[in-house]
């Protein structure tokens, strides 16, 4: 009883169905298309939606990058990468620029994406109105009628209570002036990268059995009021302790000796390439000085 694993694990029928779902998602930007999500060898909630998209669209020539909360080496990123390469033997990379297919959990890479790249984001709760309305039947109707006052009221109530909007990751966006969409729990810092992105963005929610998309060059705005504009996380006055940049989303770390906080770039691959650039520049300087 020895069974061979199919290329990219899923049988071709399943892949075809998922690709059709993706096409529909691309055709209706921001609309959540239901699909018969398969049970995967990794747990539901650990990126099975993203994984099913990746496995359905990956080809032998693709170069794959997988990140989890900004890191290529996070255990779950490694695990997903391992599963995809084991069943496809495609090349992998940590360099955002080199990748043709990027699967990510909760971050959009800081190196700007290009038109020959596809970003697949893992989504826990695809429904941006779920906190306001628990029933799927009702939220479907709200989207159909473009009835988004619940989402606006949520922001308004926060302003009344706290003096400003208090959303964190997964701040809802309006796609192509039609659908309010959950951008997946990316920090607000990443929201603007979806707007007019050159790369195709695909969102997969395995447990919730939904796929949605933002095609390249689509208008995407974060929900906000004119007098309370959208605000991203602030790292003012903070610099990465490795590459020294001040323009990045940072992880806050604590020095075990002094108990003082210090900061590091969250996108480890972007940090690494900055480090290498700095190094190269220093070598040139040394050379010129000679």
């Amino acid at each position, binding site marked *: *009883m020895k069974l061979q694993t*199919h290329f990219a694990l899923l049988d071709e029928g399943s892949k075809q169905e998922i690709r059709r779902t993706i096409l529909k998602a691309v055709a209706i930007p921001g609309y959540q298309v239901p699909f018969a999500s398969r049970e995967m060898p990794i*747990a539901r909630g650990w990126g099975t939606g993203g994984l099913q998209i990746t496995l359905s669209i990956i080809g032998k020539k693709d170069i794959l990058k997988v990140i989890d909360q900004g890191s290529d*080496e996070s*255990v779950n990123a490694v695990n997903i990468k391992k599963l995809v390469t084991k069943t496809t033997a495609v090349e992998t990379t940590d360099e955002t620029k080199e990748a043709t297919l990027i699967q990510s959990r909760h971050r959009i890479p800081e190196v700007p994406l290009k038109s020959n790249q596809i970003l697949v984001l893992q989504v*826990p709760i695809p429904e941006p109105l779920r906190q306001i309305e628990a029933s799927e039947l009702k939220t479907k109707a709200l989207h159909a009628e473009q009835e988004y006052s619940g989402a606006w009221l949520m922001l308004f109530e926060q302003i009344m209570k706290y003096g400003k909007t208090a959303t964190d990751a997964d701040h809802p966006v309006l796609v192509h002036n039609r659908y309010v969409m959950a951008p997946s729990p990316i920090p607000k*810092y990443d929201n603007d990268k979806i707007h007019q992105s050159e790369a195709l963005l695909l969102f997969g929610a395995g447990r919730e059995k939904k796929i949605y998309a933002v095609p390249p060059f689509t208008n995407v705005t974060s929900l906000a009021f004119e007098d309370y504009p959208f605000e991203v996380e602030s790292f003012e006055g903070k610099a990465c302790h490795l590459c020294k940049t001040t323009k990045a989303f940072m992880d806050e770390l604590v020095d075990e000796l002094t108990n003082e906080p210090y900061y590091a770039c969250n996108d480890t691959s972007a940090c*690494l390439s900055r*480090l290498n650039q700095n190094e190269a520049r220093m070598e040139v300087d040394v050379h010129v000085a000679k």
Partner: protein
Amino acid sequence: MAYAAVKGGTKAIEQSLDRLTYERIQSKQVIDIETIKGTMRGLIDQVMSESSLYGEDLAALAIKQAEGNVEEAVFLLRAHRSTLPRVYYTKPIETENMAVERRISASFKDIPGGQLLGASHDYSHRIMNFELLKETQSDMKKWLQSFLQAEEQVEHTTNLQCLPKVVDYLRQERLFPEVEEDNAEPLDVTKQSLQFPATRSERLQILTRGNTGAVTSLGYAAIRGYGEVHPTVGELRVGHLPLTIEHPTNQTQNDEDDYYIGTVKVTEVESFIPVSIKKGQKEELEFEIGYGIVFGQNETKAIAMSILDYSLSSEGKKYPTEDEEFVLLHIDSLESSGFISHLKLPHYVTFQSKLDSVRKIKKEPVSL
């Protein structure tokens, strides 16, 4: 020299997996699949039911690989299941044709065909049997021999292949409403995601593959106070059902051309639920049926399923157990355990974002 990426995660995972293998085999005891199949009937049945994959060998292998962890064994089988194409659908089965091994009714003492206790823990005293600590193969052989000998002496008068349904008896009395046969092609929840309102076929599929504990708990809630179901087990059957498929190319209407592909062991429950029906000016009492069927002998789950099947058919949504989204979207083993366990994944970015939000609000308190 350029900086290179740290490869911590890869190595850590390898070490963790080695550790897992170590834990599985460190006692140097080999348990083979036949032993699991031959001794862990209850576990196999639960795993097959929750994974909605009927295969005792595969279930036993999954149990071995998962070190007896049910959640993990179900996970393995479901993941395996989704790599297989669906080749056939079996033809509809009349459950009257079940080869019955156990059949009881809590509604009538004297049901046509009789009560048949079969094998059940129900009538055993739950006292630890320390004799089992020194059970030997020769003891077993001796016991089996005398049991089978006695069995041969018994005269079987009933045909256990076609016992009438208890409900038929009540239908003759018009205590159950006449229901038209619904022969609509069932939807397949593994091929098409569940949409609401769900059809009965979808509801039954989700319930039967539900986590045993979850189905049992919600069924319990529905009869204890958070629901309006007061069921009587009209009939509970355990036995084998024959499966047939149509000839793949030569599709005639003739049943004789069908292929017999084996049997599945199931538990089937029909719960009788009294309901009050308005007939003109006055109210009348009638019975309705809640239906439960699960792979293997999983009687509590099958009864709970029949309760939930009925409570989900009610129009009002007074209780969570009557809300199909509440029940059907939360009882799947893989979905619930997957999302709960994902909380172990790092949430550094999302938490940093939350911190930022809380700090900003603390810095500038609202002045209204």
